[in-house]
């Protein structure tokens, strides 16, 4: 029954996120005098902007009932490709285009294995998680490769409008586009449908495989964009770049109320979750809480986000009887098989 009340639950979860966010903001404001200044907020945002960008596409991936563990390795790979090509004096814009193409292509390959070959996305993208970082290592070995053109590092580090960087502007544009696609477009509708019940989708003529490939290809592309922005911000690339980011990104998305089982979630929830996590980490840093404890607190929040809907539906189940349908015969195995 949890599914059925999903929308109402989401709204409730989103309000809870707003509440958390206000509490955290209030604390931060009392502790730091210039906390709410544009400068400070932009800086705060800038520190995790690449994760925030990938969280947008991860929202699509998880709502469609899949997972992509390869995003952070893809970030490292695209950054390494740009660095390597830059070293060999390729025109920098062209190097970026190549890196983006690699992201799109490998993402589509992930999608192909998931959608057409039928391998679980956890397994497929785990292979990518290992393989892409390995490829990055092949390109730049254990070196720290920098020496980017000045315009590139300025793009990553300097504000365009006041303290607001290109990455931040891009993030907000992408967030708006992602929100419109997810909630108002036919494609977004398909993402939910595939994630809720892929069998019903197939029976309804929804191009399920194509939808999945598009999602994974976009995930590869967006990860590549994030990787390149990360390289621009840091000014140098290592093969260990962005290590472990995928778990932070998935955490943000789940904390935003997206169901790990697919079919449920909203862009607003994920955006709130991004702001909450950023400010929470900031507040904890101010309060002198160390990194490990910070991660623990966010983990606790994540557990709550998974636990609360379960508790709610269990409590509801105790009071409300679910309608029972008569079933005179076991489902025919032949029907189930042919649907799979």
């Amino acid at each position, binding site marked *: *029954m949890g*599914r*059925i009340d*999903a*929308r109402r639950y989401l709204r409730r979860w989103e309000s809870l996120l707003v509440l958390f966010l206000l509490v955290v903001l209030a604390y931060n404001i009392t502790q730091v005098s210039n906390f709410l200044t544009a400068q400070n907020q932009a800086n705060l945002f800038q520190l995790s902007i690449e994760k925030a960008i990938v969280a947008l596409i991860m929202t699509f991936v998880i709502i469609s009932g899949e997972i992509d563990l390869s995003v952070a390795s893809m970030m490292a790979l695209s950054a390494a490709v740009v660095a390597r090509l830059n070293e060999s004096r390729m025109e920098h814009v062209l190097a970026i285009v190549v890196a983006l193409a690699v992201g799109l292509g490998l993402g589509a390959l992930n999608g192909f294995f998931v959608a057409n070959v039928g391998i679980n996305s956890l397994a497929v993208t785990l292979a990518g998680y290992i393989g892409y970082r390995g490829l990055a290592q092949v390109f730049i070995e254990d070196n720290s490769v920098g020496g980017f053109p000045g315009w590139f590092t300025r793009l990553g580090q300097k504000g365009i409008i006041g303290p607001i960087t290109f990455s931040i502007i891009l993030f907000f544009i992408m967030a708006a586009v992602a929100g*419109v696609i997810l909630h*108002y*477009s*036919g*494609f977004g*509708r*398909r993402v*939910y*449908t595939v994630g*809720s*019940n892929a*069998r*019903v*989708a*197939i*029976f*309804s*003529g*929804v*191009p399920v495989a194509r939808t999945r490939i598009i999602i994974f290809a976009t995930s590869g592309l967006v990860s590549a964009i994030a990787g390149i922005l990360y390289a621009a911000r840091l000014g140098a690339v290592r093969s260990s770049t962005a290590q472990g980011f995928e778990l932070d990104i998935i955490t943000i998305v789940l904390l935003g109320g997206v169901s790990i089982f697919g*079919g*449920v979630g909203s862009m607003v929830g994920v955006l709130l979750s991004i702001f909450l996590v950023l400010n929470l980490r900031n507040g904890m840093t101010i309060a002198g809480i160390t990194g490990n404890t910070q991660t623990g607190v966010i983990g606790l929040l994540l557990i709550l986000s998974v636990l609360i809907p379960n508790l709610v539906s269990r409590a509801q189940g105790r009071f409300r009887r679910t*309608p*029972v*349908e*008569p*079933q*005179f*015969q*076991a*489902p*025919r*195995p*032949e*029907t*189930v098989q*042919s*649907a799979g």
Partner: protein
Amino acid sequence: MADLAPDIAPARMNGSDESSVVPVLEMRGISKRFGATQALSDVSLQLSRGEVHALLGENGAGKSTLIKIMTGIESPDTGEILLDGQEIHLASSQDAQRYGIAAMYQEPMIFPDLSVAENIFIGHRNRGKFVDRRRMESEARDVLSRLGVEIEVDEPARGLTLAEQQTVEIAKAISLDTRVLIMDEPTASLSAHEVRRLFQIIENLRSEGVAVLFISHRMDEVFEISDKVTILRDGQWISTRPRTELTPRMAIRDMVGRQVVEIFHRERKPPGDVRLAVEGLSKTGAFEDISFEIRAGEVLGFAGLVGARRTDVGLALFGIAPADRGTVTLDGQPANVSSPRQALERGIAYSTEDRRQLGLIMGQSISNNIVLPSLQRFLDKFGLVKRDEERTVAETYRMLLKIRAASVDVPTGALSGGNQQKVVISKWLETRPKVLILDEPTRGIDVGAKVEVHQLIDELAGQGMAILLISSDLPEVLAMSDRILIMREGHQMAILDHTEATQEKVLSLAMGQASELDDVDARAALRAVDGLIDAGSSAGD
């Protein structure tokens, strides 16, 4: 297990004086209701030791529900269950197992990676912490030899044939001291030869004093193996007779013998041109040589029992599980499709019987579900959903089909079965199909909604749609169809015009009991049908 046989044998001997009077298992006045459907009302059944008792009835007669109650999966609303004359309560299938009641189904429940011996003894408890593999295997051999079969007990069960897997399940039941064994359609997937061997095992069970409840749609088998036959119809007990006092004709009469109440009166109009033509459609392992035509404005009923493979034909036409051979034409154009998408493009829609798994996205709103297959038409030039249009269309269906919901934003999971069915039909109507395949459109929905669905079918046919109605509800098929195609185990038995179709005729064909055999003595009929079966099954192989 060597110690088991002497253990139970005396126990059974002691009871033998009484057991001629007191049945092993007695179901008394069992009633069970699911929502709007009275699945069983006041059904009684007695099983004696060493008796093979057949349970006959159409789909939906209540057989499955009765079995579920006997095995503790469902509990009855009223009525009692007696074991050796003592009332017992079955709260779970473990309870039933403790009392010595076990069931086996058409698809055996086998752990493919465990050995045969492990599968046989999987349900045993309190046998110590460690496995004595050698002892287990020798006991497994004992049990199997009591059944008169030889299977390697140390091999993994994966390599067994279906028939052997069934044997392992029977052995499992025997090793658990089972006194009542329920066999639900055990022969449905067996070859004629395997059926013979199964019957030999049943004979052995009989001589060991096990009471067997045997459920089969094959009339000849029922007449061969059973001592007594109980017939259910519409959830009610109709008759229990010794096999020797029953003829196939009587059995069929009892199964369909309801008063013919006109459930819906359909004015049949002369149909238009041929819409869908199917020629020699075959799919290995599913169905063989299906040929029919449906004209515009015509309803073709698909009748048959469970396992007749009617749904497979529907799924093939819709491209979910395409056929291997044969041609399909729609309005003269080839329409052999290999995906639902292609089917929908050509104007074929398929409304599934499984609303929950395949029909609706339960967490999404009525309107989302209705526009799902035709979403493309509801997108503007930027690919965004035209929500106003979507709502208007959904509202139209809500009014037209009388979908009872506060609004079209209500998630379909919150609706009753009947209203869910209407949403499913709406969703397919919105694809504006030329051919609509309706698979069990009224299963599990209340009487009021059923009549509304029937009215709708009539209206749609009136508008020139060709409708293929797959239904296990015989009165429904008879009332709604212009013609009726009867299937049995993947084969097309006949196409009857509605003017010549009767419940008895349709059921006789569906059960493989040729109607000319009606008046012949049961034994002679049996021999005749046996010949037919052998011929039929070898053709199917």
